[in-house]
């Protein structure tokens, strides 16, 4: 049962809980269990094609899952998952 920290705006979809615990041996299984138990979260995190939205990063403890095996990264009971957005910006004329 990994723990998932829920960002404030998403707590309306988890009965106002700021963290939840769901089963799963890998990050992918944990995220599937999360959106199965709280289906309104799915649209927030995944596209209609089932991919993580472009602005969503998933951290397993302090590690970005992109660098530790993505969905296949093992998740233990003591682990904490965080959903962290990618944010940037700028003005016209800025170099992209």
């Amino acid at each position, binding site marked *: 049962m990994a723990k998932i920290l829920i960002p404030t705006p998403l707590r309306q979809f988890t009965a106002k809980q*700021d963290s939840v615990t769901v089963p799963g041996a890998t990050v992918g299984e944990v995220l599937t269990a999360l959106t199965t138990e709280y289906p309104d979260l799915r649209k927030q995190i995944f596209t209609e094609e089932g991919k993580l939205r472009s*602005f969503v990063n998933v*951290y397993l403890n302090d590690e970005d899952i992109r660098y530790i095996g993505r969905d296949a990264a093992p998740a233990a009971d003591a682990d904490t998952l965080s959903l962290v*957005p*990618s944010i*940037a*910006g700028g003005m*016209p004329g800025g170099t992209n």
Partner: protein
Amino acid sequence: MIRIEPEPWAAMVAHGQASYPNECCGAMLGSTERDSKTVRQAIALENAFDGVQAARYELRPEDLLAADKAARERKMDLIGIYHSHPDCDAYFSTTDLQNSCPWYSFVVLSIQKGEFHHANCFLPNFDQTEAPKEELIY
């Protein structure tokens, strides 16, 4: 509606002015009651954009994760992001929109000739195609 208390507002303006002519960025912590948000603390974060920062900003996800942890420790919520537009109006640019997240309020401060000029707040949508204004009180 989002209301920013005087102390965090002063910190955000000071951050924008100190970063001029570059863009600054940071996190806003506070509370949410129904449709009303109150910012009680502002956390200045490093502009991590690897290039000319006068017209771009980028937040490191690790820094945002730390800001969220700080909010939890202080019994507050991470409710928004702020950044500055040096010598430019406080609008939500295409670049802002394409790199936004619908979970948070986005405050933009216009810093003109090094001084605060005006500010606006925006709520981007899921598809990163629109960001209507949110009433901002400071």
